[in-house]
């Protein structure tokens, strides 16, 4: 079982506006992610999903409004907020000249986290990365294998907040199921998860809430019923409707 720091982590966007180009990418975006919750931002290409994540990582500066992590304005406490977040990019770009293990060790040491070889092996097993690849240079890895390594790193960081950008991109169906299971397990252990995706089915499988993002605005939200999952068809209909509007 992965241990998560028990702190009151909340992700909050209030009237968030990010204006990198014209028209603005994010326009008065409002949503909150509570502690232990999985929130999926669902949207098509160019909806502003990745921009939202990067704004919470401090790579984009809000033009107006707030992007807060754990009640702190991201831009005001950049290093602290980044330390609290485990970020999984859409296409995990790790170092090809290093093995998966060396990559993990390096990135953990950057975050000043010490882990035993056993912990690293367990993380590899948890993300179902085949054992013969653990000590192989990553230049031989497929996209899915790189993604699994990045997920293993995110797990080992034991961060209270996970920011996942299209996390299942490049994974095979079995790996996607395993990943979804992992996300639920993390949420149960108290982690706060914000994931952005255009995969309606995947979002409905794991999310407690789904926000529909279109042209930088939240156009709808869906909550999971008590002890149940969000209705895929309902979300799909809304998604298709909004996209065609």
């Amino acid at each position: 079982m992965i241990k998560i720091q028990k702190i009151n982590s909340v992700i909050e966007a209030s009237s968030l506006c990010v204006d990198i180009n014209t028209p603005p990418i994010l326009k008065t975006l409002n949503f909150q992610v509570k502690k232990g919750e999985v929130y999926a931002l669902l949207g098509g290409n160019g909806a502003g999903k990745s921009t939202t994540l990067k704004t919470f990582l401090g790579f984009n500066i809000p033009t107006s409004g707030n992007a807060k992590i754990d009640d702190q304005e991201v831009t005001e406490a950049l290093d602290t907020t980044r330390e609290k977040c485990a970020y999984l990019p859409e296409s995990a770009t790790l170092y090809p000249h290093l093995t998966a293990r060396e990559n993990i060790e390096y990135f953990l040491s950057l975050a000043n986290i010490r882990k035993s070889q056993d912990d690293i092996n367990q993380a590899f097993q948890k993300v179902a990365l085949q054992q013969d690849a653990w000590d192989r240079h990553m230049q031989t890895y497929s996209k899915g294998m790189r993604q699994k390594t990045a997920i293993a790193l995110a797990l080992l960081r034991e961060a209270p907040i996970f920011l996942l950008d299209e996390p299942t991109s490049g994974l095979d169906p079995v790996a996607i199921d395993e990943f979804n299971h992992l996300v639920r397990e993390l949420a149960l252990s108290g982690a706060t998860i914000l994931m952005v995706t255009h995969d309606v089915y995947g979002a409905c499988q794991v999310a407690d809430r789904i926000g529909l993002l279109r042209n930088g605005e939240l156009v709808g939200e869906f909550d999971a019923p008590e002890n149940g999952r969000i209705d895929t068809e309902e979300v799909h209909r809304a998604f298709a409707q909004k996209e065609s509007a």
Partner: protein
Amino acid sequence: MNLSAFSTAYTIAKDEWRYWLRSKIAITVLIIGLLLTLSSVIVTSINMLELNHDRHDLQNAAEQTFVEQPDRHPHRMVHYGHYAFRLPSPLATLDPGVDAYTGNSVFLEGHRQNSAMFADQRQGTALTKLGSLSPAFIVQVLVPLLLILIGYSSVSRERESQTLTFILSQGTSIFVLIAGKALALISLIGLILLPLILSGLFTIGNGENPIVVASFLLGYAFYLIIWALMIILFSTALSKNSESFTALTFVWILFCIAMPRIASTTASTTVPSAGKLETDFTVIAELRKLGDGHNANDPAFAKFKASLLAQYNVDTVEDLPINFRGAVASRSEAELTTVLNKFAEKRMDEELSQTQVSRNFGWLSPMVAIKTLSMISAGTSIETHHRFMRETEKLRFDFVQSLNKVHVEQLNYQDDINRNLNEKSSKQARVDSANWQVLNDFTFTPDSPSTRLQRSVSSYLQLLVWIIVLVGFIQLTGRRAQ
């Protein structure tokens, strides 16, 4: 930077080294850099030691040959002449400086001020005039290029492969990343400088002042740190490896190839100096006015003759208690030397002014700054060369006048004017060879440590300003990248 940030920077530096060691290009460049520095240190040291030994022997031989001359007419000995050799400072093994162009020995004779001779670059063929592969040249010009080849992608590589976002998202500050990359490059500099440091220690063993050696090595460390910072700056500011490489190559060409030439062209334009031929004609015209010292009847010496006759209260030069021809030769030499010195000082002033203009380009190119600092510390700068020329001129004047004194006091005037009548009269017009012991022991000592350090201050300032400005730019660029 706190301890945790330093530890992270150290981790990044270690990883950079791992990347270099696993990259064939980086490791090849690193080995080439090390071999080049090491081989040039060994070759130049052996060469300089041999040269030093030769110059020492030649100085002794020249003195020996002079004093072993048989009885002669003293003025023949004035024209026989003598050589003065400059023994380089131990640090000159690392930077021969202007010595390679100005020469290291002077032929001293009466009525002439000769230039220094035996300059490596003057003796070389056209192909070797580009500059010898001295340790100084390698560190000043080639090592920055090797550093660029190894480090141009330090940060841009992370951005191009999108690992930068991933690193920053781990909570690592861009400044810690930059510090780590810089630390790796600085440790690489330490490795490349190792042969230079070892040979610096060797020069201390050969009598060089330890503070001067430390200043010399510190200057080079500053210079290469400037290049490391420059590499980090461009690698951080530009998003692509190719852009970073192109920009850094351009900067290298500008600073190491173009700027020193621009500096010397600007110097010769702003402080124009007459060409050798033009100066020679002017000097000859001035000297003609003084009269021919070999001809005691030259009208130019009529006033001098009258004053001598009056001084000794006699009517003819034959009645003088001294040799009139010797007195004319001595007076002529003194007047001629005053004129020659006037021109020599003017030329040296011009050279110094030109050098100063050129050295100010150290504010625009760190290579010019280190070149100046290196030559000054090694005692191979133009100032040292000028001192050598002044000291040898004093030696020349003293020895010529000592022989003229012998001429005045020990050779009878009648014997002197009859010297060409027959063999007997020729022998009569000779003085004892014991008089040839007029040579002062000549040993050229390098500039004192305090002089060298004092002269290096402005170059140090230039290097420090470069470091401060680059750190400032890196901070600005880093803030943008954060």
